[in-house]
């Protein structure tokens, strides 16, 4: 098991290296750079200043030299310095990652807490009005654009009812977290509900469920011991994948609610051509994705004791 974990972690290295290589070249061949965006088109910027800026940022050096410098920093765990902010990228990311994790975790809790029971009940009551209602809710949840949902929530809970603050971080307080988390979580809740329903329906048709029922075990025990436990792997896989990608998909919510997360930092840095920040953010998001997936793989063993990560099944 330990050997497996170490090997998986070692596999992160080529993955991150490959992604960083592609990302570096794509970002550096895009038209425009930090000096272009520093002045923009609106304000006139001194030609000499632009040249000075390029020199100081190292943008006048050949691409391969810049890449080696960048990789040297990455190996040391240093993402470099922001072109526009004069701050360490590590510091910028460390300030922004926690708020993103906060709403991502809250969103996934909402999604799991509502999505799994909704999908489960829906599968057990197939064809009933509960099933129809649940699935209409689920489909609506998937279809509603986050931006629109966020605005509706703001309108209802801030403007009409005056229960929640319309925006801001507010030291990460619970009240400030509610609307961004719900906006982010609704789509995933719907997805998890649909996945759960499909998984439960599949398991309900299995022979071992029929056998358990024939043995006279109560319906509750059948559902918990045989149905729920057997659907957990699929649900867990979905939740893991969703959480991994959620961290990189918070930008709309962050912008809408002025939430100081990594998504808005990433998007701002792309538009401002602040390449070190873009690279740092992408690598961190990928890192979170890889770690979450590793944890999910390890949880499989806990859920299903038949799974063993040995030399033979690798």
């Amino acid at each position, binding site marked *: 098991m330990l050997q497996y974990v170490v090997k998986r972690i070692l596999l992160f290295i080529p993955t991150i290296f490959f992604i960083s290589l592609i990302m570096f070249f794509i970002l550096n061949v895009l038209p425009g750079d930090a000096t272009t965006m*520093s002045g923009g088109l609106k304000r006139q910027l001194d*030609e000499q200043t632009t040249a000075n800026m390029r020199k*100081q940022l190292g943008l006048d050096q050949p691409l391969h030299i810049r890449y080696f410098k960048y990789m040297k920093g990455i190996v040391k765990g240093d993402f470099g310095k922001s072109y*526009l*902010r004069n701050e360490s990228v590590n510091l910028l990311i460390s300030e922004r990652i926690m708020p993103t994790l906060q709403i991502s975790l809250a969103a996934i809790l909402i999604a799991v807490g509502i999505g799994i029971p909704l999908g489960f009940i829906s599968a057990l009551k197939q064809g009933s009005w509960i099933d129809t209602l649940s699935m209409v809710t689920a489909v609506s949840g998937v279809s509603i654009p986050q931006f629109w949902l966020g605005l509706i929530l703001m309108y209802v809970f801030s403007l009409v009812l005056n229960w929640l603050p319309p925006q801001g971080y507010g030291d990460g307080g619970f009240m400030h977290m509610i609307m961004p988390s719900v906006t982010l979580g609704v789509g995933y809740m719907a997805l998890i509900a649909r996945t759960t329903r499909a998984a439960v329906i599949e398991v309900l048709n299995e022979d071992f469920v029929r056998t358990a029922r024939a043995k006279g075990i109560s319906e509750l025990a059948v559902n918990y011991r045989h149905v729920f436990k057997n659907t957990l792997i699929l649900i867990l896989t979905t939740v893991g994948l969703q959480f991994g990608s959620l961290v990189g998909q918070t930008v709309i919510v962050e912008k*809408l609610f002025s939430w100081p997360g990594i998504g808005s930092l990433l998007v701002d840095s792309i538009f*401002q051509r602040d390449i070190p920040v873009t690279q740092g953010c992408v690598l961190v998001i990928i890192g979170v994705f890889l770690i979450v997936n590793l944890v999910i793989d390890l949880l499989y063993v806990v859920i299903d004791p038949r799974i063993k990560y040995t030399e033979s099944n690798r």
Partner: protein
Amino acid sequence: MKKIFCFLLSSIICFCFFTTNAQAAKKGGTFNFIAPYGGDLSSLDPHKTNRSQDYIVILNIHRSLYIWSSEKGKPVLALADSVDISKDRLTYTYHLKKNIKFHNGRGVTADDFIWSYQRILNPKTVSSSVRNIRIIEGADDFISGKSKSIKGLKKIDNYTLQITLKDVVEPGFSLYPPEVAILPKEEVIKRGDGFGVSPVGCGPFKFSKWVKGSEVVLEKFNNYYEPQKPYLNKVVYKIMPEAASRDIAFKVKELDATIVGSVNYPEYKRNPDISKNMLEIAELWTRVICFNVDYGPFKNKKVRQAVNYAINTKLINRKLLKGKAVNPVSFLPPTSPAFSENVKGYEYNPEKARQLLKEAGYEKGFTFECLGTDNSTWGVRAVEALIPMLRKVGITVKPVRMEGAAMATRAKTGNFQALIWSLDSGPDPLSALSRWKSDNKRNGGNYCGYKSAVYDNYLDLARKTTDENKKLDYLKKADQTFLKDAPVWFYNYNKAVMAYHPWVHGLQPMSVELMFQDLSGVWVDDKSPRKR
């Protein structure tokens, strides 16, 4: 005699009582404002940023030698009581205020001005404000390292600073912007790069905290040099790029004032409660379609004029922008001191457009591509609105949507046929018009590649003269020459709109940029939910 004395004494006591009470009523409270442009702030080091979003906050932490006066429509002295100007208008002797303190408690002296201007010019700082300080004699020698000091900067004594200029220009225009603020040397050195996230200035508010991507909080500086000011205890800048969120936050009174976009403008105007508390001003930003004068049809002046005649500009501003724009005359807007009052811009006249095209040899029309971003006011959306109008005279315009940085690269290299953008057209009309001078390259802002000896001559005359009226006259003539040559389609001047709640007082119609509010004179009355 006794009665008169008693009357005078009681009048003075009453006056003192009421003014003291009036001042006391103004004091206190928190003002929730916005930083609405783009994303998070980049830096609060005024010498190291070039973003409007940062300046909104910076101008209340720091102070420059001059400050923009919305009342006078030009820069006025801020850190000096008076200035003596030599006869040749090249040497300015400033008598600095003696009660200015930095937020760390140290007094501001002439040395701080010299150090700050040297820091801007130092190539290691890589400041985008170099061009502002370049007006001082000896700036170029300092930049190139030929001289260790700036020849034109001289400390007479701690509170007297002499500045000698290279040419006859109005120094206020270069020395008022927030990016040339005076900084405390010891704090800049001590904090290093950290100065940008934890700045120390001599403005009305001191930095308190910055929740990245969410808000910046400033607190009242008790030793600010203007008596009684600032009135507010605290200012919170909410970083809110989304107009829809700002709208709701304003309506739930989370914001005390907000900028209004064209989407919300008609609704705010219709609302009797909001419309009476709105500031509207033609900002010194001119929206244009730049024609690349090296591209086939646009080489011909008549073709460029024809495009201007073919478009019903007023209709587009009324319908597309819902009236949140000021119809154009020439490049300089009405809030510019060199605005040509008696000149008419291009009217909608498709017949004349057809005739001009015929004379230019383009009777059958032509096709051109126009680059634009997805900006809702001066982006591709506006170009799309031109399609039917231009088609009527045989011209086909193909809008090409681009991302800002990619478009900027093409603009600066001349790799385009036409592009739509918003350009600064002030506050200094000479500086604004110099953008289009023949010797200014495309990457210096002359995106059209416009060249005109007549235009250049007027600008040179304006630069040389010491007579203010003559200078304005030359600038007006240059602006009118630009209008006739039409290297751009004159779209509009930005009408900036700010809405505020009835308890807010003292906001100013700032033509340089409405969001550049000096909050030292702003106060909130007892109706504010954040008064205490």
